């Protein structure tokens, strides 16, 4: 990955003063923590919503950690995303119990509803569709998580109603 600190897009969090203040605060708070890169990236992902290439370069420079190490961590873990997500996120649990319970059918229906493949965001920026790892609600399989809300024992007929929450 090339160093992108020279040409930061104006829409990037690093270029937006309020967001940059949040980033600086996260860096400051965790500066002296052993193994801080993971902690910082986790905080950035949760507070900013993603870790853009410019943000990675910024972290690398401020923390004096090689950019490839920062990028290596970002690309290794599935929780880190490099682009902004939609306003809503619909996650389909793909644990064993959910798979056996028919998660695939639900995903198929969601693909049709939103017109995007899992891992992508609708064109209007409203909804991101994701397949996620076991959320540990196996006795409720199959499970669909809309934003933070968990829906269990979801049948295809019930799904339309649930997905509506992620469309407004």
């Amino acid at each position, binding site marked *: 990955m090339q160093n992108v600190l020279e040409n930061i897009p104006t829409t990037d969090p690093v270029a937006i003063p309020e967001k940059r203040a949040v980033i600086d605060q996260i860096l400051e708070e965790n500066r002296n923590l*052993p*193994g*801080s*890169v*993971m*902690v910082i*990236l*986790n905080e950035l*992902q949760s507070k900013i919503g993603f870790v853009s290439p410019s943000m990675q370069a910024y972290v690398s420079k401020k923390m004096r950690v090689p950019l490839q*190490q920062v990028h*290596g*961590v970002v690309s*290794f*873990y*599935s*929780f*880190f995303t490099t682009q902004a997500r939609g306003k809503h996120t619909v996650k389909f649990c*793909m*644990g*064993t*119990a*959910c*798979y*056996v*319970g*028919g998660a*695939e*059918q639900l995903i*198929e*229906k969601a*693909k*049709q509803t939103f017109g995007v493949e899992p891992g992508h965001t609708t064109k209007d920026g409203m909804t991101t569709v994701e397949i*996620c*790892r*076991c*959320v*540990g*609600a*196996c*006795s*409720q*399989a199959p499970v669909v998580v809309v934003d933070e*809300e*968990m*829906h*269990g*024992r979801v*049948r*295809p*007929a019930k799904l339309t109603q649930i997905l509506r929450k992620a469309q407004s």
Partner: protein
Amino acid sequence: MKYYRTHILICVDPECLGKGAHDIEDALQDELVAQGLIDEVQVLETPRIGDCSHGPEMMVYPDGVHYVGMSVDDIPFLVEEHFLKGRVAKKFLLTKVEVKDEELGAPTSKEVRVVLRNCGKIDPENIEDYIAEDGYEALAKVLASYTPEKVIDEMLASGLRGRGGAGFPAGRKWQFCRASKATPKFVICNADEGDPGAFMNRRVLEGDPHAVVEGMIIAAYAIGSSRGYIYCRAEYPLAVRTLNIAIQQARALGLLGEDILGSGFSFDLEVRIGAGAFVCGEETALMASIEGKRGEPRPRPPFPAVSGLWAKPSNVNNVETYANVPQIMLRGAQWYASMGTEKSKGTKTFALAGDVNHTGLIEVPLGINMREVVYDIAQGIKDGKKLKAVQIGGPMGGCLPEEYLDRPIDYESLAAAGTIMGSGGLVVMDEDTCMVDIARFFMEFIQDESCGKCTPCRVGTRRMLEILQRICKGDGKDGDIETLEMLCRQIKSTSLCGLGQGAPNPVESTLKHFRKEYEAHIYEKRCPAKVCKGLIRFDIIDACTGCTVCARNCPVGAITGERRKLHVIDANTCIRCGICMQVCNFNAIVIN
């Protein structure tokens, strides 16, 4: 500490939150204030009372009454009946059969609860609740009267084996770490419960976090460590929250920090959060992740007890292992060793899921047989269907057929049957499950989660997945089974870490026990369970009333037909998702 005559525990498990648990709680608070009961009745949040399948759940103590399925509108009635008139509101009572399974330590149950003893019973966010259940008494006992060597001797005598998967004796691990000369030493809790189908650690962390904290402090004392980490997966935000609260409260009472209980022993703890990498459940990968690096495993030896986190001696155990420790110290190694089998002592939690009537968590003495678990505790297979297999041990485990039901569940027996104990996920599958498809599902998971560091796992699992995908599509060919078997052997013997070494297990065990299904797919181009999309087609039979429900629900518009007339599925457009079959009220759609 304020005293109340009654406590209401409301389940705020993610599953119950989705059903409005917070609204119920607010309504309860309001009603208790309105009725002037707020100083007598305390409302508390707790994760998981039952299996959360009956809507919002609450437990009233000391009465031990379990209410389910109420709505906000029912609260005034419930409060009046139970708390004013002192009558049980039968309408919302959970039926007797289920109460038996869900009440802790019910005498008729086959369960023995050690790790789960406090879950759903105490307020996890209040350290006093834990202390009232003999919490931190074990720590006080250990610090006051045990030498570190004595703690390790007790652990060895208890026979407790690591509950995270491999089953290495915990006492031996502690012994090795104590023997290491380098300092500082680290105590690490593996709370990266990534196995799909397993959620027992989540429940312990959310319901009884202090048991884990106390276990870790005792471990730190035994090995001579002053610093600990709990590595929790990012998928469990509530667990992270309860853990952080628990640590703060323990610190405030001097149970963590400098000079614990005046003993001169110091130890502190912090939570680190993962970021969605399954391989971080492997101990060396986990430590790399805490160090802020990619979670890639490294070869062992050196073992973590010699060179672990930041190349210092470290002891890694999982949540359940640590949660057992205070009870062992308090009640004695002999008590713990009296449960279980000769080589597998104590109890183990299992997460029951899949096609059984009763799902949820159980804790049973090791050595119980699978039949008792599936038919007595889980109350048999749903809809009276036949059992096909029990998947145990997560993605590195295996599928056991019915013949294995009467064998005991312990580390040795499971290993002999070609699977592992793993963290204890038990997914029961009925006759409608295709075992080739299940093998493909697990291989897809493994392939996706392989960190890519070593070739056998990175490339080998991909080759296996490709073959399985081909078989499921109907393009299997002669020799595929043999190639799979060869790959299984090679990946097993040459992979770097437990993930790769265990990766072939789902395929190997299904090949061993369900070989006929593979052969049907490859040679007869037939999926006996009617699951694999490339080998089935959906058709509408005469029972169709022309209600149009299927056509309206079909995601690809493959179904046509006039109202009140027989509909037809276009096999070329159909993606075999099976939605039509689920929505049809007349059983008019069949798989051929």
